[in-house]
């Protein structure tokens, strides 16, 4: 069963030392286990299970909203986009393939596409369809030779690898990939030289690649 446990925020830069005490790292067993997201999405696909949808909404909508806000959307717009994301989860549940991606990765991709769509609409008017953006990411339908990469197991490995990254590297990954900050901006936010931003990013990604068992 796939269980996604939030990355411990205690690893964050700027947190005090006591939060990094070993006791904080055993909270996996304390945290309430999440339901199996993959099965919830399957339940929506198979029998339009509203109860499953509610569970997904309660966990993901507030986090998706945070994602949009961090990407620069206003509170109201982020709320609206989070609604759209969840509506898409409902409508496209039958397209979800648990063998190809984990539930959270799938929801992330939906949110990402809606974010790009919103960004383009802002600049070009209403003529854009999110299906255009979906097509941009569907670069090839051919199956990958090693599907284990996308398995639930690899999702666990990614999570573990992220947990093991030093806090300063995690922060740079988040800022760079998920909050759309240019490297120079990140340098400003964190008060570190540009070169350090780049090297932290490289280190973090190398660690993730190794965790994934990927040839570099």
């Amino acid at each position, binding site marked *: 069963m796939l269980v996604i446990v939030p990355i411990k925020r205690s690893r964050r830069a700027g947190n005090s030392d006591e939060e990094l005490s070993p006791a904080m790292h055993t909270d996996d067993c304390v945290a309430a286990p999440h339901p199996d997201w993959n099965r919830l999405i399957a339940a929506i696909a198979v029998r339009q299970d509203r109860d499953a949808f509610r569970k997904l909404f309660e966990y993901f909508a507030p986090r998706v909203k945070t994602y949009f806000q961090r990407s620069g959307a206003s509170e109201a717009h982020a709320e609206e986009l989070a609604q759209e994301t969840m509506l898409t989860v409902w409508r496209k549940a039958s397209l979800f393939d648990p063998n190809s991606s984990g539930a959270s990765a799938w929801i992330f991709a939906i949110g990402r596409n809606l974010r790009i769509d919103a960004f383009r609409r802002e600049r070009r008017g209403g003529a854009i369809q999110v299906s255009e953006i979906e097509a941009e990411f569907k670069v*090839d339908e051919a199956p990958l030779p090693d599907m284990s990469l996308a398995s639930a197991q690899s999702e666990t490995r990614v999570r573990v690898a992220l947990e093991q990254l030093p806090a300063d590297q995690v922060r740079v990954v988040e800022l760079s990939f998920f909050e759309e900050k240019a490297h120079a901006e990140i340098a400003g936010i964190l008060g570190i030289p540009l070169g350090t931003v780049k090297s932290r990013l490289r280190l973090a990604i190398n660690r993730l690649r190794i965790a994934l068992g990927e040839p570099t």
Partner: protein
Amino acid sequence: MTLQHHPDDCTLAAFAAGTLDLGEHVAIATHLVGCSQCRGFVRAMEGVGGTVLASLPPTPMSADALLQLEARLSDTSEPQQTESMPPISDTGIPSLPKFVRQYRMGGWQWVAPRVRLRRIDLPVPSKTRVFLLRSGPGTRMLQHSHTGVEMTCVLAGAFEHEGGYFGPGDFDLGDETIDHRPIVKGREDCICLVAMRGDLRLEGLLGRLIQPFVRL
């Protein structure tokens, strides 16, 4: 066939995060069509995106958000995303991603003897210009310098410069500090997709003469 030259991890991660400029996105997507290894990494990075998303601190949704959304779940009167994609033009280049073939393209423009260029019009404003470059056997590909990064994907044929030999599917990254002088290898025309940020400056006397005519 194994590809020798790939985009760097940070760029692939930015692709997965959806933070690349569309022109650069096109270049990476073109490489991904032929490279299952990089596709696997991109998918894994989407997994990272999902893990980060699931670990974000929640921002409360408005009190009636779920109710509002539930009312929309069974509402089929809302416009659904339709699969009404514009027709795909046949460029005779199968390694060009499908979504790119939906874009408007100019005709082949003469640039220099045995060098032709075909502009790809991106549907949204982009900091990056994208074009196809076709160079005859033995020619030096467009000698130029530029003020930003340049991504090149080999679609057919091959070229070589100090950085190595680049065959179909290979990816080459140049920036203002690199002065490559690629030569087309083999008997075939070399066709590349180029995504270029910044201003293009053609080099040499011929370059300066034709510069005013090459409107990218």
